[in-house]
């Protein structure tokens, strides 16, 4: 079933994230995607929104569609002006990609080309509006298009560290939903119970909520997130659980799978983020009994 139909039918959607290579070696990407065929509803292909220069998401998305895997690609505002963004959106539709997530961009200084020029011609809300305009057969300057595209637009909710920043990021999400985003993707959720308040608040946005589940590969990664992203609320107990485990790799997979399972009753779907360990996705889905 396609991702859109899954959402429309109010069924639990399972998404997996896969990154394009930094380079032209696509064998891992293609192999990992093939292995997931039939086990996930769609694969999300982020672009360079995280500040790392690599193959563009559009090409990656097309590649995976060719393998028979439905894809969702990221679009973001930092690196392209409205001309390039509109052009890419038209290209995406023509190449068979209609699922687009409007993603937040990280600061250029945190990327691997920190001296690159920041564009930020549009903000995320304006980008969503631009896509909506295109769907109506017009470009941003009001000229007619020769054939209008059709998109399913989602957006990501930014991370937060406390109640105040949570409210702010939800307000932004709300504005994006108002502009046309049809579903939202949350930051990583490690304890569905602990994040109950946030999930409930996100639910009030009135569109399907898809929770991100992040694979913790090691104790160091868990500690890093605990220190750098307090909103993730990793908690000492989880850190202890990983530390005590004799096979941390396996433990991380179990934690991710259990989190997916626990989210089944709370959200409309999950996006599993494995950052390089896409070959572990089947094992996580096994634990989640999906």
């Amino acid at each position, binding site marked *: 079933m396609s991702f859109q139909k899954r959402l429309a039918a109010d069924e639990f959607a399972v998404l997996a994230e896969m990154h394009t290579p930094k380079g032209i070696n696509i064998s891992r990407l293609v192999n990992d995607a093939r292995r997931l065929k039939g086990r996930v509803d769609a694969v999300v292909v982020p672009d360079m929104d995280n*500040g790392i220069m690599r193959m563009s998401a559009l090409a990656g998305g097309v590649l995976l569609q060719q393998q028979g895997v439905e894809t969702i690609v990221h679009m973001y505002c930092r690196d392209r002006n409205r001309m390039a963004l509109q052009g890419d959106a038209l290209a995406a539709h023509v190449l068979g990609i209609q699922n687009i997530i409007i993603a937040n961009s990280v600061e250029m200084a945190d990327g691997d080309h920190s001296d690159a020029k920041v564009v930020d011609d549009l903000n995320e809300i304006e980008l969503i509006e631009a896509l909506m305009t295109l769907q109506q057969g017009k470009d941003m300057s009001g000229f007619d298009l020769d054939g209008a595209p059709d998109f399913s637009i989602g957006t990501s909710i930014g991370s937060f560290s406390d109640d105040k920043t949570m409210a702010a990021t939800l307000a932004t999400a709300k504005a994006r939903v108002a502009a046309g985003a049809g579903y939202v993707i949350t930051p990583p959720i490690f304890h569905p119970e602990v994040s109950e308040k946030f999930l409930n608040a996100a639910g009030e946005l009135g569109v399907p909520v898809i929770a991100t589940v992040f694979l913790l590969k090691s*104790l160091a990664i868990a500690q890093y997130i605990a220190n750098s992203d307090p909103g993730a609320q990793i908690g000492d107990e989880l850190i202890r659980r990983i530390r005590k485990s004799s096979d941390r790799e396996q433990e991380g997979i179990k934690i991710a799978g259990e989190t997916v399972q626990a989210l089944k009753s709370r959200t409309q779907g999950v996006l599993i983020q494995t950052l390089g360990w896409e070959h572990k996705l089947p094992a996580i889905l096994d634990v989640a009994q999906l």
Partner: protein
Amino acid sequence: MQNSNRLHTTKNKVLVVGGGLGGIRTALDLAEAEKDVILVDRDYTIGGLMTLLDRTFPTNNCDLCTISPHLSESSRQEHIELLTMTEVVAVKGSKGDFSVTLKTAPRYINLEKCTACGDCLKAFPECVRFHAGLDHRAPTCMRYPQATPQAFSIDLARCTDVQALVAVCPAGAINPDDMAITREIGCSSIVLSPGAELFDPSHLDYLGYSTFPDVVTSLEYERILSASGPTGGKLLRPSTGEQPKKVAWIQCIGSRGLQKGAGAFCSNACCMFALKEAIVTKERFQEDIETTIFYMDMRTFGKDYELYLNRAKDDYGVRFLRSRPHSIIQPEGSDTLNITYTIEDSTKQLTEDFDMVVLATGFKTSAESRQLAGVMGIAMNEDFFPVTDVFNPVASSVPGIYVAGTFESPKDIPETMVQGSAAACMAGADLPAVRIDPEEDVDQPRERDVSQEEPKVGVFICDCGDNIGGVINVEELVAEVATLPYVAVARAEGHGCSRVSMEEIRQTIIAEGLNRVVIGGCSPRTHQGKFQELLAKAGINKYLLEIANIRDQSTWVHTGNPAEAVDKARDLLRMAVAAVVKAQPLSDQSLPINKNVLVVGGGISGMTAALRLADQGVQVYLVEKSDKLGGIANQLVKTIEGGDVQLFVADLIARVQNHPQIQVFTRALIVDHSGMPGMFKTGMQSGPQMFYRQIEHGITILASGAKANRPAGYLLDQSPAVHTQLETQQLMGSQPEVVRNWDNVVMFQCVGSRIPENPNCSRICCQTAIKNALAILEINPEARIFILYRDMRTYGFHEEYYQKAREKGVIFSRYTLDRPPVTTAAGEQVEVSYYDTILSQEVTIVADALCLSTGMVSDDDSTEELAMIFKLPRTADGYFLEDHVKLRPVDMPVPGFFVAGAAHSPKLIKESVSQANAVASRARTMLARDAINLGAATARVDGKICAACLICVRACPFEVPFINADGYSEIDPAKCHGCGMCVAECPAKAIQLMQFEDDRILAKVEQLFERILA
């Protein structure tokens, strides 16, 4: 030597002066990295001081057998020319273009011909050079049986009948007309590692060393304990020849400026040396011998050394007395030694009798070394040790001349090995590699396929001069062996290892079509490689060889009983013949090597190693966990010698970041790892976005450092007056006006170290306290500084800063663990009470600042995870555990992994730099090769028998076996270490260890027990 020509015509090489452990390490590292070396030593055999030792701390192993093959390996290396009995006369030129005059004294023995049979020694013991020390058991000029070069030398002056001496040599190796040779060589750089001498206590009357035979130096005691020593390993008193009941050690003889002629420095290794001797004595004699150590401070500051001290105290019952004995006398008519001493909390003079007294004599540079330094023109300090770069201890004052080992400063073996490699790194950096065209193609015939042939064994039995032939009749043995099954040729071969015999054997193999060879001779440990090469040259696989060690195991040990010697030799030969029939041709495993290097950790160690390798054109990936480079050094201001740490670190960072061959990943965490040495693949996530990437590399360098300890207690983080030493140092820089107002400053040593929860010593804190105390006095000369310590561990030249601090009025007071100082908050100040052992009373100080020497601890979570991911061992306190704590201090047990800096154990910046340089040198030895030879001793599974029971999977300590797609256990020969654990465990006997196959071992056993069965 084939390489002589090249070595003498170009300047493209390194001269290494001194063939002790350090010099050998330097030469081997350079040679393995394809650089040419001339290694010279004044002595007639290389090996230096270590070859005199019985055992080495902290493992109490006899490491001679570990090191000696390396020594002989060095003489085999294509890139090394070894010149013994040679000294440096003059040096001209500068870095890149030195011209050195060398003078070689005559040995009167042709090294090419001498087989070390020892006939000359037996016939004319007076003509041989007698080695210093207590070697009065047998006059021998071979210091130990495995000496390199494996040859004798003649003292012609002592010889009356030269003609007879020449005639006695069966190899015709003695040449009485040998002359001294003076030659001039060119080289690009020079490494000086001539070692050090031990302090001679003869002039110190009150110790009685020259009067009483039972007063010996620690090295002499070592010789007495040694199996190759004068008493054959029996611990006997020199005076009576009886076993002593009470032995005392007196520390710091010739060190810490205590005696006339003593150095002002601490000799670094003597505490451990004495501990080792006491422990070994206790291990061997338990309650029969009492051991007492008179000491000032026990300086067990090295890696896990404190545990060794604790073992000596708690497990072995070695007695420790903090005291400097007044005198040693032997009253008339008494045969025991009387030591007079006082202990610190009493003024009473005590006396006690001992049977033997060991003086722990310290290091000093020899007159010859000082002269060498003069010839080289390098600056020396007041203690006659070389002046070196504050951040790079192997760099002398002259560019292109490097120093290492005990010549650089007093040190123990691991640190000498580190500096040996570090010097190789520096000296080799500017030399292009010298590739030797592989000779095999020309020399080596194609290997014959013998798999379809019936076994056809050739047995060659040496007489080894009289060594074998003098005890048993070799011809009779040959006749007997000739009748054994499959033996096609049996022959007496004189000296089988001589050139002539080797050529004869080779031709016989070809002419007779032999496909198996047995050598009846000496030890495979020394000669197997040689005969394996011979087989290869004769066109058969080198593993179709067995050596029956009928010399060491038969004629040497049963010299007095020829009948039994013959029996045993016969058994050994039958076993060897039976086994060689079962031998199969094997090929050494090899792998192509990826020449990229992954460095984990961006502190001083990691950056230094990265730069050294990148400068040689190696692609380096530097992974740092935090968001910036520099590590713990970012928090340091100055070294004790006054080096500007911030300047040094900033320069390193700039060079690393701008280096085209270095890719730096900050905020990066290693998450996965696979592959094998030379072909690793490591995954990491880096940056705030946790971008995942995989890196392919051949070598991994661990330089992940340690972290500053911050134990709760003593009002740390509670009183504004309490700081760590790190904070104190920063405070002096940022707020000197605060420091200027301090009246009383107290420092506590060993905070969080040397306690049950963290038993080891943090090594750096004593010098840090002294450094900070001196710096406080610079800012505020009126400050009263009290340092409360347990043992002041200011090793090496740090001792002189300790003395300086005392001179400047810093008060040092000792506390014990059962009576630690007590702190009470007093507003902005802190009240410190402690028990003063000298005054025997409680003292209270109201301190404006309390500085805690909190030292370093391993970042347990981080090293544990790295160890899990890389599958590497750690110490109990979380530092990476190297392959051999003595001889391979920066090599990890998994090939391709190296460790440097505080990830190994706490250390100073310059020590970390040395280790980083050493690691770079060790890495280069691997990178110089295009493939890695893994040997042939690997486990092989017979898939037809394997039941896939997983026992081997669990038994393997290296996690190599796995059940493959075909459903049976598979062992990758490239990963297998050949330990044989799985072979022993396999219930189906489906696994065989190549070279040690069951049928081969059983064939031996059958032969051995044949007569018993019959």
